[in-house]
């Protein structure tokens, strides 16, 4: 069992970050929300304000673009499956590609793009779908440190423009504090909600926030709790027969 | 599940043949073929022809592999050698090797050397090309690591390049053995007076179908044992290799 008795509520327009030790079921939680994984018990409620639009759209960790489609056709993929007309699809793709700064790359194939650019396409694909809730599964984890910093600022800008509800899974506490309105800390296996921390660092937020004393204090506070969980998870692993893990 | 479909096919064939729904003259019942196979293996002529084919195969494979692996490696590490040999490789590789048979027949005369060399040629080209590809597609960082940690010249070859190319060499040997079996059986079918390929041909001409199918099944079994056995051997010997592929 990856998750146990999770109860969570995200407010409309909120940027909710989920952190936790490896194996706490962060990604599973997101996949349950996306409907990719059936939970054994419990419900997911997403209030739909605009009927006809999808409830969720996911940005995958390894971008998961279709290699045989151009950047533009990847962005329009969800709309195409919903039967949206060509003119509207393409207008929407243009808009979203402009928003993520890839307007010039509409006709490129994914293999011609850098890692950061591919993930921008993944974000544009999710946004083009215009979901109630945007789900992001460690979207920047595979990027190098500099690209990640640039993408974090981009995400803040896009979120401020569109005002979407975002559920964002990350293993980086710093990233959660920079982006989130609230940080949900999960426990080690099985994942439960350990604590929810409001992030009162003001908006709009930029990278400079990391220099403020309030940021440092909050980071310290959550980190000491996260550290306990990580140590607990490692001790639990040590108790297990190493042969059994590989199976 | 694994044996369900083959079993079903054989059972249906048996019933259809016994009931005469398909002509038992052309499609004798599998049990009849099995009896013929067992009988002829013991009585000797089938066992003898199997031995002939196996001997030709072993000779052809050895004649191909011994020069092909060194040549492929040499082409991989020495650019001029590759430039020198590549045009002939590109010209002959896509050609069916059985076309070499008439040339070898006029040069060497009708007989074993021509048969075996034709079989060897199809393995030879495959092994050279696989070996060369193994050296060419190896991770260039491995050579850098080797140099950086003090492996030069022959040491670099024995400790880094050869192990890196080994999976591809093994794959080449495996494919080469399969190809020379295919070519040899075809050669026996058209030109030889012995061997499993010739048996299929002779019993086809005489319309002694149980014997024909028995020889046919033996060739299939031989191919299966060779391909499966070598794959298992490769997985066993090259334990660090992740995926053997086709």
């Amino acid at each position: 069992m990856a998750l146990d008795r999770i109860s969570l509520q995200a407010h409309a327009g909120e940027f909710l970050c989920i952190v936790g030790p490896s194996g706490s079921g962060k990604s599973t939680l997101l996949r349950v929300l996306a409907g990719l994984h059936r939970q054994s018990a419990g419900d997911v409620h997403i209030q739909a304000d605009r009927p006809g639009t999808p409830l969720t759209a996911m940005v995958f960790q390894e971008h998961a673009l279709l290699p045989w489609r151009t950047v533009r056709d990847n962005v329009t993929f969800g709309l195409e499956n919903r039967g949206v007309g060509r003119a509207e699809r393409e207008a929407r793709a243009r808009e979203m590609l402009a928003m993520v700064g890839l307007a010039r790359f509409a006709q490129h194939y994914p293999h011609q793009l850098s890692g950061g650019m591919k993930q921008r396409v993944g974000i544009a694909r999710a946004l083009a779908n215009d979901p109630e809730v945007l789900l992001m599964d460690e979207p920047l984890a595979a990027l190098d440190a500099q690209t990640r910093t640039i993408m974090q600022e981009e995400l803040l800008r896009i979120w401020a423009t569109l005002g979407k509800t975002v559920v964002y899974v990350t293993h980086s506490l710093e990233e959660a504090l920079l982006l989130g309105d609230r940080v949900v800390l999960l426990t080690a296996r099985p994942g439960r909600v350990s604590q929810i921390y409001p992030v009162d660092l003001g908006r709009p937020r930029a990278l400079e926030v990391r220099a403020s004393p309030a940021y440092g204090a909050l980071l310290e506070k959550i980190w000491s709790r996260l550290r306990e969980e990580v140590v607990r998870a490692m001790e639990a692993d040590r108790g297990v027969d190493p042969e059994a893990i590989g199976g | 599940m694994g044996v369900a479909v083959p079993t079903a096919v054989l059972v249906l064939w048996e019933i259809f043949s016994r009931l005469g729904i398909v002509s038992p003259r052309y499609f004798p019942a599998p049990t009849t073929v099995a009896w013929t196979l067992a009988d002829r293996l013991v009585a000797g002529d089938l066992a003898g022809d199997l031995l002939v084919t196996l001997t030709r195969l072993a000779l052809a494979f050895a004649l191909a592999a011994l020069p092909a692996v060194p040549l492929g490696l040499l082409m991989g590490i020495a650019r001029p050698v590759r430039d020198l040999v590549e045009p002939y490789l590109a010209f002959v590789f896509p050609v069916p090797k059985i076309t070499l048979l008439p040339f070898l027949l006029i040069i060497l005369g009708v007989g074993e050397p021509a048969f075996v060399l034709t079989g060897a040629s199809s393995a030879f080209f495959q092994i050279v090309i696989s070996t060369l590809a193994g050296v060419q597609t190896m991770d260039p960082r491995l050579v850098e690591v080797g140099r950086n940690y003090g492996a030069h010249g022959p040491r670099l070859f024995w400790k880094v390049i050869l192990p890196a190319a080994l999976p591809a060499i093994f794959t080449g040997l495996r494919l080469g053995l399969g190809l020379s079996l295919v070519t040899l059986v075809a050669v026996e079918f058209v030109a030889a007076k012995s061997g499993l390929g010739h048996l299929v041909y002779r019993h086809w001409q005489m319309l002694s179908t149980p014997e024909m199918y028995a020889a046919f099944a033996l060739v299939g079994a031989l191919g299966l044992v060779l391909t499966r056995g070598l794959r298992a051997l490769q997985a066993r010997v090259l334990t660090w290799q992740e995926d053997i592929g086709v």
Partner: protein
Amino acid sequence: MRAVGRWLGERWITIGSPLTVLVLWEWASATGLLRAVFFPRPSTIAGHLRDLAMDGTLWGHAATTLVRIGWSFSLAAILGVAIGLAMGLWRRLREGLDPVFAVIYPIPSVLFLPLVSFLVPPGEIALVVTTAVTSFFLIAFTTTHGVRQIDRLVVEAARHYGARGWRLFAAVLLPGALPFIFTGLRLGLGFALIVVVAVEIVSASRGLGALLWLSWQVLKVEDMYATFFVIALLGALLSYGLAALRARLLPWVPDAGDR
């Protein structure tokens, strides 16, 4: 002009070595160092090739072979892609057919000729069906593998964005398998040439394989060499032509040899 010069500079060995061999062969054969009965002079072979082309013999045999390859390949491609896709999509079918294929595949295709000649009218149809056997297996195998190797995350993402049923197949599974299908078709076409020549050597009276074999039986050595040259040329055209076509048709596949 300079580009040509640089190209020559890099590839002079590759171009020079066959030319040198041809010149040496011509000389050795003319002086009797090589027995001209077995190794006729290249210029003599070229003359025979021209004669065969001029009197139409060559074109007739080549056309027969090409038509046979066309039929065999079409048969193998249609059945191979269809069954390969079905095996890739349905596990039960794959598990059922795998052992059958494993037993039949390593059998040399020429041996199927007697069997096929019992099943279908002997002659042209039996020849075409026999030639199709090996290509069919190759195409079916690679197609199955092509469906199976598609990144599961990509399929999951496509489902998440609403692709189901036919759309999932047409937009994700088929294009995902396409590079492998193409490799299978390329291998299948190559093997169709190999097998058709072998089958023609065994049993036909027309076609390039038959021409080669008949030339041997009447000891027209120059015609043997000329025919061999044409078969090799055909093989090269098929394999390199298809590689170029693939780069054209599948632009999303980064350049990589799949030998």
